[in-house]
């Protein structure tokens, strides 16, 4: 896990190929196939990327936590899966935003379409071929009663996709990815 402090009071934690264990029971799984005709990239192993971020803007703050894993397969298609929860899952006591609000694990349905949209938007920027065929599964999340929003989850989903695409030998670029894709 890498802790990041950016300017203007922004804080984040990023996990690359580590499991932050922000798990929750899914009440629904949303699946969407977004491309066909892809080949499996043999060099690709499973990849995992997660980010927790808090951005103060004065009288309020933005907060979100999102993590995903990419599972390469031979299906020839690229699909996204999203584990949706209730709003009332367990409190995430280890959150960097615990001093601001009660942070709960899970991704309520309110944010699900924004996560999907952010991921698709980010995948469109770079070629899906970089991933190859497989499933991108968003399975870790936490949210704030006050600080989470659809726009912010869209941004975080974009960031997670970029973290998954990051060349593992260039981890010094993590802060730049967070700045480029997460900020409001």
């Amino acid at each position, binding site marked *: 896990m890498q802790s990041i402090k950016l300017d203007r009071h922004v804080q984040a934690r990023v996990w690359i190929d580590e499991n932050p264990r922000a798990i929750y029971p899914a009440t629904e799984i949303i699946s969407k196939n977004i491309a066909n005709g892809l080949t499996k990239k043999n060099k690709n192993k499973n990849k995992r990327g997660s980010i927790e971020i808090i*951005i103060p803007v004065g009288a309020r703050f933005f907060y979100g936590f999102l993590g995903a894993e990419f599972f390469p397969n031979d299906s020839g298609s690229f699909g996204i899966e999203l584990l949706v929860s209730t709003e009332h899952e367990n409190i995430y006591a280890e959150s960097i935003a615990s001093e601001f609000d009660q942070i709960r694990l899970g991704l309520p349905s309110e944010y699900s379409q924004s996560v999907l949209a952010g991921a698709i938007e980010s995948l469109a920027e770079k070629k899906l071929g970089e991933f190859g065929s497989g499933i991108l599964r968003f399975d870790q999340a936490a949210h704030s009663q006050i600080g989470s929003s659809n726009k912010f989850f869209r941004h975080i989903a974009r960031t997670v996709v970029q973290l998954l695409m990051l060349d593992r030998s260039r981890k010094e670029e993590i802060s730049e990815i967070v700045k480029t894709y997460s900020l409001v």
Partner: protein
Amino acid sequence: MFGKLENQEFIVEKERIEVIKKHIEEFYPWQPNDMMIKRLQQALDNNQKISGADACFYFHELKEAELMANGYTYVAAHNQAIQDYEVSPFSLYHPDVILAFPDDFNSNWKKFWGIE
């Protein structure tokens, strides 16, 4: 919902709006803040008193600015400002601002203001 500011009206002062503008520059630009400041400026220009969300935002930002100038961290200043006025965190943005930027505010804000 407006704590100590409930059922009260307040005069807006030009110098204090300047303090808020300077304080907001500490953070990344965010349009709803600009819209809240514009509402304060309009009240000043039209000699109107403020109440409700406008007053909550005004006094919250002034207190937060004062505390951060005295060395408080953002989180300590933000929480202290909310406690001092005993306001709900959801009272700090006017419903018109929430409606203007619906993607920036989740359903809890809309429930609070009855604008779902």
